[in-house]
């Protein structure tokens, strides 16, 4: 009889028209790092929601240390020692690290906080597990890596035994990822059980002991990492072989499509400029990538080019025309496409149907609007069906599905389909594969390369190093609003790129 910290046995959870979890079993041993791998919409989130009591499964039981437990809400989960680091941290920005850690379980005497005692405990924990933090620093002042360590300490402070990491490496630099891996191994050695949810096969291969794979709501199997390969894992996840390296010929850049000179964009967050005097060119037939850690001005840079934010200084030329002050619609019609960073904020009208979202950039064209101003709904439907079919956008009711009811990955596919199908001269792709599984990533990468090969320019902004390295023809690293280096992906290494991204090196 194995010694399991937590077991989810034969869990089945249905939603109308879909079985999100179909007889899934997940057994987490004491002191192991167990990876949970699956495509978008494979049912990972649902399974975790069941574990946290947000959903009640129709079938199956959850056992803690061999005993059946009933989890009705997240408080029950907390009492059972289950804690989670979410992909997007749940921290109060203007509170100190210590305040965030004790939030909700504040030690007090008759209502007065006893922080000194809490601080001792936090320092002891951070010492024991090698989690360096400054308890008195404010969250808004510390790096993303430190914020994540704060989240981990939050779980440890509550004496959680089962630690869940939801895509923890998405926002980290390569160096920080290495540190996190070490921390996770240390935690496991101390007897904590870790569930590691990730898309990234390299990380799973490096850190996990075992890996359970889900596909389309079904449980595919659990494998020992020592006896498996990356290829096998991806085959289990996607159901077919996946090419990891984007096949592409060397770039053959020709005319300049986008010419940016001395661009400066103000920041909304602070009084400093978010983008400082950036100049660059993007030519036909090349994929230029802006790499950098989240929040170094990439967002504002793209807003400046797409017209969402005005420039404070500088000039933008697109296809030889000065568009510094041109309205957004003009830029779009001229041949600029923009896959936005935040699909809910900019990319979609969530209450619109899928078909209405697919024509968001083209609804005013004669194909979709008659001269009198009436929508040609038949044409919209036909066009939507074509894109849905071509890009394999999956949804409950096809073109009439509300965008809100679609999974994140399929929402992203819909946006990518819409923007690439416009056949733009310049494609600005910000995190185009965010939240997608390897199968979909492979497809979108192929589309982007195809678009380049058709003689168009691509400006890629990505936080994923693998994507940066495999897709781009030229890498520009942005650090604190400036371009600090231009690298050739063929001759550089991930480590070197990381040093530029962290501001440790510049040209």
């Amino acid at each position: 009889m194995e010694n399991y910290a937590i077991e989810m046995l034969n869990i089945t959870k249905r939603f109308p028209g879909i079985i999100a979890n179909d007889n899934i079993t997940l057994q987490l041993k004491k002191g192991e790092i167990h990876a949970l791998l699956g495509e978008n919409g494979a049912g990972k989130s649902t399974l975790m929601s069941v574990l946290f009591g947000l959903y009640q499964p129709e079938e199956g039981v959850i056992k803690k240390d061999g005993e059946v437990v009933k989890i009705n809400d997240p408080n029950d989960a907390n009492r059972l020692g289950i804690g989670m680091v979410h992909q997007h941290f749940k921290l109060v920005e203007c509170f100190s690290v210590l305040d965030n850690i004790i939030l909700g379980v504040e030690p007090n005497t008759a209502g007065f906080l006893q922080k000194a005692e809490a601080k001792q405990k936090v320092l002891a924990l951070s010492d024991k597990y090698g989690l360096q933090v400054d308890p008195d620093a404010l969250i808004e002042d510390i790096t993303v890596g430190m914020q994540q360590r704060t989240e981990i300490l939050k779980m440890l402070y509550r004496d959680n035994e089962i630690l869940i990491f939801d895509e923890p490496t998405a926002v980290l630099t390569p160096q920080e990822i290495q540190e996190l891996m070490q921390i996770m191994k240390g935690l496991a050695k101390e007897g904590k059980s870790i569930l590691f949810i990730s898309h990234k096969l390299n990380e799973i291969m490096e850190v996990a002991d075992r890996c359970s794979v889900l596909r389309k709501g079904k449980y595919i199997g659990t494998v020992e990492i020592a006896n498996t390969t990356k290829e096998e894992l991806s085959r289990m996840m996607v159901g077919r072989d996946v090419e990891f390296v984007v096949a592409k010929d060397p770039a053959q850049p020709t005319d300049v499509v986008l010419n940016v000179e001395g661009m400066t964009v103000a920041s909304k967050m602070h009084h400093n400029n978010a983008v400082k005097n950036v100049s660059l060119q993007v030519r036909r037939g090349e994929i230029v990538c802006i790499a950098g850690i989240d929040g170094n001005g990439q967002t504002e840079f793209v807003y400046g080019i797409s017209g969402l934010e005005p420039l404070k200084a500088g000039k933008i030329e697109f296809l030889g025309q000065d568009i510094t002050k041109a309205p957004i619609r003009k830029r779009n019609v001229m041949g600029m496409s923009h896959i936005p960073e935040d699909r809910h904020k900019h990319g979609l009208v969530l209450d619109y149907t899928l078909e209405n979202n697919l024509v968001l950039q083209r609804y005013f064209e004669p194909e979709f609007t008659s001269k009198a101003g009436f929508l040609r709904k038949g044409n919209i439907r036909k066009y939507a069906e074509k894109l849905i079919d071509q890009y394999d956008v999956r949804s409950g009711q096809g073109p009439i599905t509300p965008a809100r009811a679609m999974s994140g990955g399929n929402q992203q596919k819909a946006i990518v389909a819409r923007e690439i199908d416009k056949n733009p001269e310049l494609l600005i792709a910000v995190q185009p594969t965010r939240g997608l599984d390897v199968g979909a990533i492979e497809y979108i990468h192929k589309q982007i390369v195809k678009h380049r090969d058709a003689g168009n320019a691509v400006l890629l902004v990505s936080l994923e190093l693998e994507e940066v390295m495999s897709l781009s023809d030229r890498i520009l690293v942005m650090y604190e609003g400036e371009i600090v280096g231009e690298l050739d992906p063929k001759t550089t290494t991930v480590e070197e790129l990381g040093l530029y991204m962290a501001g440790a090196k510049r040209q």
Partner: protein
Amino acid sequence: MKEKKSLLRNGGFQTFTTSIVCIILGMIVGFLALLIIEPSGAWGAIVAVIKNFFSYPSAAFRLQYFGSTLAKTAPLIFCSLSVLFAYKVGLFNIGAAGQYCLGIALALYLAIIVQLPWYICLLAGIAAGAISGALCGILKAFFNVNVVISGIMLNWISLYGTNLLLKPAMDPSGKDTFRLVNKAKQALLPTLGLDKLFNKNQYVTIAIPLAIIAAVVIWIILDKTKLGYELKATGNNLNAAKYCGMKENRNIVLTMVIAGGLAAMGGALYYLSDFEQWNVNASAVPGMGFNGIAAAFLGGLNPIGSIFSSYFITHITVGGGNVDLSRYCAQIADFISSVIIYLCGFVLFFKTFMNKRLDKAEEKKIARARAAAEAENKEGGNA
């Protein structure tokens, strides 16, 4: 079986059933309140409310008062269209009441003081409401002032502005403005013979068909046109609208212009039909604009639905006037109708509730089907 399910899931059908449920609940609560106040007359009172003009013995009278109910329905349709149009674009036009006032103000001023024909009075009234709406829209679009706040402020400004403007048009024998039939015949709305259909009820004018036409036009704009697509996109996600190059600020202002124009058109048409006169000492905006909110929600935020919901609300409000006042105080009619209107606001709540029940039923059905399929498989395996 499948067809039945899709009918229950149909948005229009859901709105209809939930609206009916709200109406019935409202009547039950209203009836309970009457029972508590004075049990002996409760039944009679609630019947009077529901029967409205049906309580008249002669068919001719019934027809005439049906006409009056319709005449009062028309402005409510306009107000509910105003509210729902703005609401679809994500703006809560509580200023409909003030815009309604301004429509009245300009129409009556030009009719009685300047002695202009009805169509100019009407157009000027619409323009006044549209400008007031535009003001709200501009404040929202360029200074991010909440339209509810600016709307409420403008309601008061509009009310006192209207009183001020119409003071010279006051009939010295009372506090109300002159009757148009006495002082400004040229400004009376044409009836196109509609009055004859309703036992010569002169208040039945073109306002009624115009209200229905307006509802259809609003439905077409919202559902069928590029403009509607843009406006709704702006309302649902301002950032996405901006991202795809829509003129989001223009859309907000335009929406408020149309919404303001609609409410004002309702006011102008109603007062140009001479059914009511403006009390120049009024200390509160007419309830019409606020009832428009209830009518819009009861109608499921559908322009066509708002025709029926507006009629219903008017019907019970007018019917409330027939309650036996020897047993109940004068406010009882308003009380009952407001209880019913209040419960009408629960349409969305009941809709959500209904969908949840349907989801559960569906889940169970799938589970049963699965179990059956599994059983069959097993049998097949054995055989």
